[in-house]
């Protein structure tokens, strides 16, 4: 407490250290460092996926409905949840805890909607026979090249790993926000802002997962539909 008070009276020049050299609390700096390390986890997974994709024959099986429609609505849910979260943090910064709680509950609603839609979308693919290390037989027939090279069965592994880890982050975020909404009267504004940072990060990751996993795997020429696949 006394160091923070001193730092406010004698603000340090940016690179001269001091008690709060970045003028953010240690919790917020900690969350930023966690976000940096978690971005590297997702980058490594997405680059691993791109590596496999560039060095294999890769199926592009996603139809407009249900896959792309579901993924687009899910994107919309996450973007909207970020907006409601930012309203919540804004209300909390003005000291209006009740309003902040309402906006955070709206964020939780959108987050939960994302998870439900994603699980329905997963169940469509699982029903068709997609597994982490197998492709549905139909996909193998349709996407085998004219030289007879079959599509990589790792499609499912990359899909379930990356979207699954992201879904786990959303689920963790929903739990985290439930706790923040429940205890909001006891928490400082900065704690609410930190939960917002985590939530926006989950949204940010999806902005890379959605184009790379969904948009790049669209069955543009309706090959599967022509083969009676859907």
């Amino acid at each position: 407490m006394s160091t923070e008070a001193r730092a406010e009276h004698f603000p340090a020049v940016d690179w001269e250290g001091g008690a709060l050299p970045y003028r953010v609390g240690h919790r917020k700096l900690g969350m930023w460092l966690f976000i940096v390390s978690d971005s590297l986890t997702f980058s490594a997974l997405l680059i691993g996926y791109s590596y496999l994709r560039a060095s294999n024959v890769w199926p592009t099986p996603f139809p407009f409905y249900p896959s792309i429609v579901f993924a687009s609505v899910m994107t919309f849910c996450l973007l909207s949840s970020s907006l409601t979260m930012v309203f919540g943090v804004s209300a909390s910064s003005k000291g209006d805890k009740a309003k902040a709680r309402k906006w955070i509950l709206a964020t939780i609603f959108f987050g939960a909607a994302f998870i439900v839609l994603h699980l329905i979308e997963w169940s469509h693919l699982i029903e068709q026979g997609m597994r982490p290390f197998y492709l549905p037989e139909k996909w193998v027939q349709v996407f085998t090249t004219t030289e007879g090279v079959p599509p990589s069965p790792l499609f499912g592994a990359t899909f379930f790993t990356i979207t699954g880890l992201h879904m786990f982050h959303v689920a963790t975020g929903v739990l985290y926000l439930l706790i923040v909404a429940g205890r909001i009267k006891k928490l400082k504004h900065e704690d609410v802002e930190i939960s917002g940072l985590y939530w926006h990060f989950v949204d940010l990751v999806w902005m890379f997962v959605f184009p790379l996993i969904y948009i790049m795997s669209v069955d543009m020429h309706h090959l599967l539909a022509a083969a009676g696949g859907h």
Partner: protein
Amino acid sequence: MNAHAHADEHFAGSNKLFISIWVWLVALTLIEIFLAYVTMPIHIMLTILIGLSVIKAALIMAYFMHLKFERLSLIITLVPMLVVCILLLFVFFPDSYRSIGLRYQFKQPPPVAPAPVEEP
């Protein structure tokens, strides 16, 4: 220092600004969905998609995550280090282009999932 001064210092940006950022993010997403159905070489497609995603990520970080309103020293500490580390991972791509030529050529298709058991 009262709560209001704290808010002024640490949480700039009006709700109107945040809504306009959200509109931009939704619009860029719609462009991506449209691009999915445009025929073009995969490299150009990938460049445009990643470009749009980087713009979206920058908007989220700058406004929603509030980085634009933080001290410059925090931004300089976090962002360049992250960008360099991610770019270092690109060292694997020449190998992935090489290995498509070395790939084991299957004589038979790989195994497929067993057919679901019919309930009697």
